[in-house]
């Protein structure tokens, strides 16, 4: 059967997870020549940020664009861990912010804990870029998109003047993942 990789990015509204999802999808689709979709769930109206963003990467047409059998779940809050971990595949990856999420449920999935928000705040200097730090970790642990593609996609998406900041956030994420020894 064809290759299909499902990522769900979850946390709170305002954490930039939609943007992270779009960057991931663009990296895969535009720079890595795969197929990709990104979608999200909203709160009551469009106003607030979405709290859930999903990316499907495949080498075929993507018919059902929602994640049902998740390969990688990013959870930036304990609540999202609790709510979504059961959608993970048996050999899936649960990537949590290790400061925010202390209770890790049992499961056949692999678990990685990275202090993503702390890295953003302390190593990069802006909590705001936690989403990009997370992208760095994901790129490294999921291995479905190339680092170069993600970097190119970041540069294409982020506001002028913030390129350096975002690239260093991405790098910090990649490095944190490498330290996990994966």
């Amino acid at each position, binding site marked *: 059967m064809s290759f299909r990789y499902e990522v769900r990015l979850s946390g709170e509204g305002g954490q930039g997870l939609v943007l992270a999802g779009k960057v991931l999808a663009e990296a895969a689709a535009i720079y890595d020549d795969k197929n990709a979709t990104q979608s999200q769930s909203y709160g009551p109206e469009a106003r*607030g940020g979405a709290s859930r963003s999903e990316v499907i990467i495949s080498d075929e047409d993507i018919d059902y664009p929602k994640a049902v059998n998740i390969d990688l779940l990013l959870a930036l809050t304990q609540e999202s861990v609790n709510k979504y971990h059961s959608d993970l595949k048996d050999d899936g990856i649960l990537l949590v912010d290790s400061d925010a999420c202390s209770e890790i449920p049992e499961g056949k999935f692999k678990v990685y804990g990275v202090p993503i928000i702390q890295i953003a705040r302390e190593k990069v200097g802006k909590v705001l870029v936690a989403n990009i730090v997370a992208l760095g970790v994901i790129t490294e642990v999921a291995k479905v998109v190339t680092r170069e593609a993600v970097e190119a996609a970041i540069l294409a998406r982020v506001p002028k003047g913030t390129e350096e900041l975002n690239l260093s956030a991405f790098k910090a994420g990649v490095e944190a993942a490498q330290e996990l020894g994966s």
Partner: protein
Amino acid sequence: MESFDYSPYLREKKFPLIWCAGCGHGIVMKAILRAIDRVGWDRDDMVMVSGIGCSSRMPGYVDFNTLHTTHGRAIPFATGVKMANPDLHVIVITGDGDATAIGGNHYIHAARRNIDLTVVLLNNSIYGMTGGQVSPTTPKGKRASTAPFGNFEASFNISGLAEAAGASFVARGTAYGAVQLSKYIEKALLKKGLSVVEAISPCPTVFGRRNAMRSPVEMYEDIHENSVSVKKAGTMTADDLEDKIITGVLTDIEKPEYTTEYKKLIATLGGSS
């Protein structure tokens, strides 16, 4: 001095509020509740009616008879409530988009009829709920998601419009000047007729960010700096008044009220209501 106890008026189970951090709508809500408390009306007799928008979510949080209607139509629904039972005290909560874009016609007609409703219009100069599109009160030059090059439409003086249409009480206050705002609302509640209180209520999320006001606090300071009392405004030139927020009671006149007149008609005809 004790803090005012809002809890008897709240549906605390529904908290936290849906509004963003720093949104002025919560401050206006408090001002309304304090005014109602001073007036002393029974919660069972209070009806709060709203349209659609961030501001219009307020009725969900207050322990009255509450009615969250369709976009722009709060005033017609409220008109029906009030006519069916004139003993109810009906407050309309609406936004600048809700009341003056899609709902503009109902706004001026209610003013013309001078029906006894209190309209609190939370003006944040933007469509908050739908993500920051330009509104009829967005100041010229300000950016919005559908005014990417800066708004070049003129904006309504919505209090002026209410006056021209016939409202018997019009006042303007701000979320910064919350004490005064509450006083205006109290007066509006007590007024027999259509009263409008325009409450300047900052939207940090979709207006502030797009217009280089980075924090909520900055927006409140901005309001503070630009507010001028109606009294002081009388001494200033039109040029000086540009971009200023004139606060205070702008109109307060006595006119026949709609439901009262209707009652008289029924009495004349010998019908009993």
